[in-house]
Every structure is written in C-alpha cells, then in structure tokens.
C-alpha cells in the first residue's frame, strides 16, 4: 500500500497499488495527481543515498515516474485477477513481486546509473525481468490484446528510447506545430543554424520511424 507519511498522514486517504493501477488505467486525473505526490514522497525519503543538485534529482524522478505512468496507462502493467502483472518482451504477463514504488525506485536507479556512466541503457525490460518476477508465477498470455494497444506501447517505448533533444524537437515541430524559426528561437543556444535544426529534425523522425517499423514487423503488426 502506498500511503501518505508525515504530519498529514492521518488526514489523507491511502490507496493500494491495485487501486492505483486500475484508476490510472482509466485515466483518473485525481488518482494521477495523488499517485504523483505519494510516489514523490516515497522517492524523497528513499533516494537519499544518492543526492546531488535538486534539479537532477527532480529530473530523475520525473523520467522514472513518466515511464511507470506510461506503462500503467498502456496496460503493460495491469491488474489481472486482482493481481498486478507486468508484460514481458515475449508478451507474457507475470505477477509483479514488488510494490509500484519499489519498481519506480528501480527505474530511478537505472536513470541515475546512466547519469553516472553517461551512457544510455539499451533496454529496461531485460534488467527488470530477471530482478522482479518469480518464474513460478507465470499467468496466461492475453492473445486477444488489441493490436492498436500494442502499437501504441511500441511507439511510446521507441520515443522513450530517443534522446531528450530529439523528443523535444519532434514535440515542438510535429505536436506543437512550431515553425523551424520558432524552434530555433526557443532553442537558440542548442542549435546553431536553421539547416542544422532541419537536419536534426529529419534525422530524429527518420530514426524513430525506422525503430517503430522494425518493432511492428517483429511483432507482425
């Protein structure tokens, strides 16, 4: 159970992980906000062994939380028979043997490790499959899973695998509909020229499309 701690603990309602996953799967905004603050409190209390400047700490939390939230919303983490399960790369769901907050901390530690090593982890999946699932608790694979849902999940994971710069440029150009000049203005210290920005934008989009296409083909989607 995730609960509020500290002075106001008794006044706040507490929710189980199952309730959180169910509500987030239904995009319950009140629960989203509650879970954010509960997870933040847990993170602040338990991520003390690695402290550095506040912005980096916050950045690590937000990246880890975004990943966890996306997994729940995309039903990679979901409730099956009142048990929280997570889907593996082979499509099978297995019960999670740890709490959501523990899982969040694992994401955060990986983010921190990347910061220390200054390298991007290739895949989170492999790291956690061994660490957090018990072999004896395999449940049946949901073969009727919506193809659309699978595609969404793949696109999200490929976006998460891109560099923050790429994601920012693509969001500004494609989602927010900004002109190249406007993006240049917003990111004036990061991109020297309009041509450079144009090339970066095309390169990022092509790489992302390529990665998604490969994954779609891999899963026959």
């Amino acid at each position, binding site marked *: 159970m995730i609960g509020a701690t500290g002075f106001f603990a008794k006044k706040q309602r507490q929710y189980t992980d199952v309730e959180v996953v169910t509500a987030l799967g239904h995009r319950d905004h009140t629960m989203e*906000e509650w879970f*954010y603050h509960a997870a933040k409190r847990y993170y602040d209390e338990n991520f*003390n062994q*690695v402290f550095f400047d506040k912005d980096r700490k916050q950045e690590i939390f937000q990246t880890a939380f975004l990943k966890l939230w996306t997994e729940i919303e995309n039903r990679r983490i979901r409730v099956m028979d009142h048990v929280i399960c997570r889907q593996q790369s082979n499509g099978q769901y297995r019960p999670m043997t740890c709490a959501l907050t523990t899982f969040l901390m694992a994401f955060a530690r990986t983010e921190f490790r990347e910061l220390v090593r200054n390298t991007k982890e290739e895949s989170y999946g492999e790291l956690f499959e061994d660490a957090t699932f018990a072999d004896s608790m395999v449940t049946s694979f949901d073969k009727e899973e919506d193809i659309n849902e699978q595609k969404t999940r793949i696109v999200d994971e490929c976006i998460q695998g891109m560099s923050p710069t790429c994601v920012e440029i693509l*969001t500004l150009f*494609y989602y927010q509909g900004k002109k190249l000049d406007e993006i240049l203005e917003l990111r004036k210290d990061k991109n020297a020229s309009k041509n450079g920005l144009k090339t970066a934008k095309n390169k990022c989009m092509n790489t992302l499309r390529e990665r998604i296409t490969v994954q779609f083909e891999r899963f026959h989607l």
Partner: protein
Amino acid sequence: MSEEVFVRTEGDALTMRIIERLGERQRKLDAMAAWERPARSIALRPLLAALAVAACLAITFVVVAPWKKTVSPWDELGLEKPSVEYLRTAAPDLAEIQQLIAAQNYDVAILKTEQALQLSDRELSILTDALVGNDDEMLLYEEELEQLNNSQLRWTYIYLLVQSEEYALARMELKKYLKWRDCPHRNEAKALLKKLK
C-alpha cells in the same frame, strides 16, 4: 510535406500515431509540472526563510568576525572546502559531516568521517571480493556508487586532517585517495601531496 512547418493533413498514419503519443507524453509532463508548482512554492517558503537567515549571518560574519584575518592551514595550502556540487553520490553520513563542518564542529566531524570511511572501506572490500569472477550488473553498479562515496568521504577526511594539522596522516590518506583512477580531485590531491612532503 513542408520543411518549415508541419501540416497535419499531410502526415501518414505512422506520423499521426507518433504525434499523438508525443502529445500524450507532453500532457503528462505538463501535468507533473502543474502538480509541482504549488508543492514547490509551499516547500520553498521555509527554505527561503532559512536562506535569508543564513545570508544575514554570513554578512555579519564577513563584516564583524575578528578571527577572519587569521590564516588557517587550508588557506596556507590552498585547499578548498568540499562542496555539495560534486557530492553526487554521497551517503547520508556525508550530509551530516557537511553540516558539522559548516558549524565548525571539526572534532566531531573528523570522528564521524573516520567511522563512515571505515564502514565504506569494509563495504567496498566486500563488493570487490564479490566481483571476482562475477560481472553482475547490479553488483558493478553498487561497487561504482560505493567507490564514489568512498572517494568523497576520503577527500573530506583529508580536508579535515589538514585543518587539524595531521599532515602525516593526511599524506597517507592522499596516497590512498589517488589510488582510484577516477577520483574527482586528482590534480588538487597531487599538488597537496607535493606541498605536504
């Protein structure tokens, strides 16, 4: 498709799906930023008050303190106080030691650092042993963090030893400190060792 601005009607199905997911990601980031705003402003209030008090105290010390003009061993040897900026992986112990140093409670700080360093040395030795013939990712990560922590503790210890004018011990610790290839104050440590010889 225009190179200057994206026209939505020109996007194919995959592009539109990517845009939708980029938008969803942005929605989450915006929501998190909004949830942080009130929390931050409330959380910052005591911090700002504390900073104001600290600033007043600092000004008082700078203007009034008569002992300011005495030269400490740190000044003589050109050693800067370990700053929080580089303490990226510090243990809670180190935070406490930092506070003790800030309060000029050096005797307790040095004791606390010795204890923390002993524990860290032991932990590091266990991890190093466990890694013989083992390339477990998690263990490697733990060892890396402990090595950083150990190095930061030792650098703080050296700083405190210099303050206590325990130069022989400081020299010994400097040699240990320099054994780790990636230690963050290598040049400073080398220069200090030279001065202490």
